[in-house]
């Protein structure tokens, strides 16, 4: 059967538990059997509304952050430091140095708390799409703590992406050129009229809005001048008029005394930008397709074209498009379901959510993220994570399988975990009221955790294991079955 290439709505008869499962994994971080059933029960429209717009937020779960973890010296302190340097007062200089070292240490500790906090949010939030989009934009407008070296700025940026992420790409792009973490990361705090720094202008067009080859070097030079004076004052954006080049610029054929905000609007007015955003959304939510357009499958290309048109027409409002996409026939096509490689965050949060695994050591979870190649707030570069098949290689595959083992059993970690790590885990609740025959249980859990599209032949090792394990399904057998399900290559996909 030909694949659906339009954003036309999925026929009502095709809305199934399998489709509900697909929606939960792709738009959120998976769900338990009960959640899958509830989403199915709600029907497609209400399910999508729920993931997009549920009002209840996680109360009282803000991270422990200190806005002053890194702060500029006060005038008095600067004066004292200068005096100490001039008089060679070694004690005073040592004191300044140890204070600096101390604040760096506190900053790293805060960075670690922030990583755990975000992972917890992904695991617990009733509005998973919000976190999923924040993660998309974090990898898109990629900023690294290890360069910015101010965890509070990273937190501010994260909140900005959470606020605008599902609303408007235009607001996001406008926010990013005034975002202190980004301005620091791309050295725009050193972009002055007298000596323009092109870093921000280049990345803005190449990585954030248009893609390579969609602009000329001249547009970068002029764009960089428009961004001069976009600096940072402690935790805030600061427009330094004296550092700004107020003279005329010509960007994409338009001439005027543009500033950075104008520069962004000039970019947004290009249809190419909407299409670029469509591609990024498609690759994040639908299929792991290549960067290069001439390698896109024709079906994907047609869908991306429509998405781009839609985004442009909606003036970069994202909700209308996302609603259509998540209800489209294309999104539920058999060539899409179960064909995308889970990111480490999806694998981790998804396993915990879908299997209701008990609380595990946050240090271990962070370490697993590092081994799997996705450190939150520390993407490898401004280009973000490669994603797709690059998540999986011989080393990360073991890391992924062993993480799942640890989540379910508490075992398999270097720290050893507790000897009876799975005692606090009761997977029986996952079975509901269904048939408890061992092979029925195995088939049911394969449907839930690997997808009903997995053919019978590939289920055989699991079914044989259950048959050998006895007549009744014990907690112990069930834990082992879940461990094996997570070792199935299909578990890496969603």
């Amino acid at each position, binding site marked *: 059967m030909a694949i659906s290439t339009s954003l036309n709505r999925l026929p009502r008869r095709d809305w199934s538990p399998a489709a509900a499962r697909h929606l939960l994994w792709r738009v959120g971080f998976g769900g338990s059997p009960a959640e899958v059933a509830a989403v199915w029960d709600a029907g497609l429209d209400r399910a999508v509304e729920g993931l997009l717009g549920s009002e209840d937020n996680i109360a009282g779960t803000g991270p422990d952050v200190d806005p002053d973890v890194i702060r500029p010296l006060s005038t008095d302190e600067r004066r004292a430091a200068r005096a100490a340097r001039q008089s060679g007062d070694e004690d005073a200089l040592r004191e300044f140095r140890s204070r600096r070292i101390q604040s760096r240490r506190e900053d790293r500790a805060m960075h670690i708390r922030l990583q755990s906090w975000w992972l917890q949010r992904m695991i617990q939030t009733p509005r998973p799409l919000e976190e999923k989009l924040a993660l998309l934009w974090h990898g898109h407008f990629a900023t690294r703590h290890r360069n910015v070296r101010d965890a509070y700025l990273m937190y501010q940026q994260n909140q900005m992406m959470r606020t605008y992420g599902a609303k408007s790409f235009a607001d996001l792009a406008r926010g990013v050129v005034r975002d202190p973490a980004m301005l620091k990361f791309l050295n725009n705090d050193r972009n002055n009229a007298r000596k323009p720094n092109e870093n921000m202008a280049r990345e803005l067009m190449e990585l954030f809005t248009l893609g390579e080859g969609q602009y000329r070097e001249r547009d970068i030079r002029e764009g960089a001048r428009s961004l001069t004076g976009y600096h940072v004052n402690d935790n805030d954006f600061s427009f330094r008029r004296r550092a700004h080049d107020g003279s005329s610029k010509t960007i994409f054929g338009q001439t005027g005394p543009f500033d950075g905000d104008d520069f962004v609007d000039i970019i947004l007015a290009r249809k190419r930008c909407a299409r670029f955003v469509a591609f990024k959304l498609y690759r994040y939510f639908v299929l792991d397709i290549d960067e290069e357009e001439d390698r896109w*499958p024709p079906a994907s290309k047609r869908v991306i074209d429509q998405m781009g048109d839609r985004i442009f027409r909606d003036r970069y409002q994202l909700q209308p498009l996302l609603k259509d996409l998540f209800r489209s026939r294309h999104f539920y096509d058999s060539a899409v379901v179960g064909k995308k490689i889970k990111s480490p965050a999806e694998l981790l949060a998804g396993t915990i959510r879908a299997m209701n695994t008990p609380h595990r050591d946050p240090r271990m979870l962070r370490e697993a993220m590092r081994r799997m190649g996705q450190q939150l707030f520390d993407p490898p570069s401004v280009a973000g994570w490669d994603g797709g098949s690059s998540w999986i290689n011989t080393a990360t595959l073991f890391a992924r399988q062993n993480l799942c083992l640890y989540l379910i059993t508490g075992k*398999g970690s270097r720290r050893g975990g507790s000897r009876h790590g799975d005692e606090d885990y009761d997977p029986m609740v996952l079975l509901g009221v269904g048939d408890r025959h061992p092979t029925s249980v195995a088939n049911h859990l394969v449907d839930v955790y690997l997808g009903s599209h997995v053919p019978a032949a590939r289920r055989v090792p699991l079914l044989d294991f259950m048959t050998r394990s006895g007549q009744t399904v014990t907690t112990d057998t069930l834990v082992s079955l879940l461990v094996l399900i997570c070792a199935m290559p299909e578990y890496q996909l969603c």
Partner: protein
Amino acid sequence: MFHEGIAFTRREFLYSGMAMISTATSAPAFLARSGLAMADQNMAHGLDRPGSVPERVLVVVQLSGGNDGLNTVIPVGSPGYYRARPRIAIAEKEALLIDPNQGIALHPALADLHEMVSEGLASVVQGVGYPNPNRSHFASMDVWHTGDTRGGRGHGWIGKGLDQDRNIDRSLACVCIGSDAPLAAQGRHVKPVAFERAEAFRWAGRQRQPELVSVYDRICREGGDSDMDAVTRFVYRTALDAQVASDRVRKAVATGPVTRFAGGALSRQLQLVAAMIRAELPTRVYYVALGGFDTHAQQVSTHQRLLREFASAMKTFYRELEATGHRSRVVTLAFSEFGRRVAQNASAGTDHGAAGPVFLFGDVVRPGLQGEHPPLDQLVGGDLRFGLDFRCIYAELLDNWLQLDSTAALGRVFRKTRLLDLS
């Protein structure tokens, strides 16, 4: 036809390591044969001549934290050195003279390195750095890892170099000892393997219940079927490759060394590497690291301990390679993300600086002191001026040793250093 067309174009299919040559023996026919299984057979038939290019190995030793180059390769003939470092300078009579004409000596803890230099096995390259040096550990390490002074795009010089070789065995092309792989080793297509202990490079399910292993093996070694779409087949294929790679690595390191390795982090890592080289894994690059060089305070004893560990580990490593008949296959590069400032600080330590020495080891290096020591009377903002861009050394190693295209890996042409003698 959608199933065939949508997920991967042919080119990507090849890149993803899914290009397969059929006629499998142990692997399921539809997965065909893994590159590893093929390499095994080649070796059994003696197809890889020792010393031929695919057998050449590069080992990279990262000295993390910013090694104090000036107290490592010491200008004992420069009074300026003693003036800048009254509390931490190494006395001329204690240092190991390496070049009387230039007045350059090695730190006394580097006796083993000194010995390797006189044996023609080690080269000390002076004044290595890059323009507009960055004094942040992370930022400067990124520069060294990516070979790009702007910090790159998430891929490193080794990974991008290995990407150039279409015939490479992707699953073990680069092995890093450590909990996660360094940026340097990340290619767009070739991804490194990283583990601290070989035992960690496997599925840990036996800890739950040993009987699960046979089911796991059935899934990951024999699983899958011919109806799989490209993405699913890719994961099954990687799962199989992972088992084979794990078997080979664990088997390799199970063989004890011929030479006695000392304790210490670097020795332990190099012992693993020597075992894997001896087992003739299809690995082209090994990556190890020794940390602790960030000597801001009371650096004398710390620095001495680290240098001793470094030199002794290198000597033992090459003794072991010699004893097992693999020495000619292995060139080693040792670097640090920056040197330290010329002047000592108020805490009898040194702060982050710029240029520093790099070390090369192996039969083919031009032994002894290479390049010129950065002059102490021509500092740039209190830092040593670099005389050789580190990327020239990378280019030499990529082009002439590994025979990988350095221009593609580094994004531009760097002049040749002639630090290797491959005539």
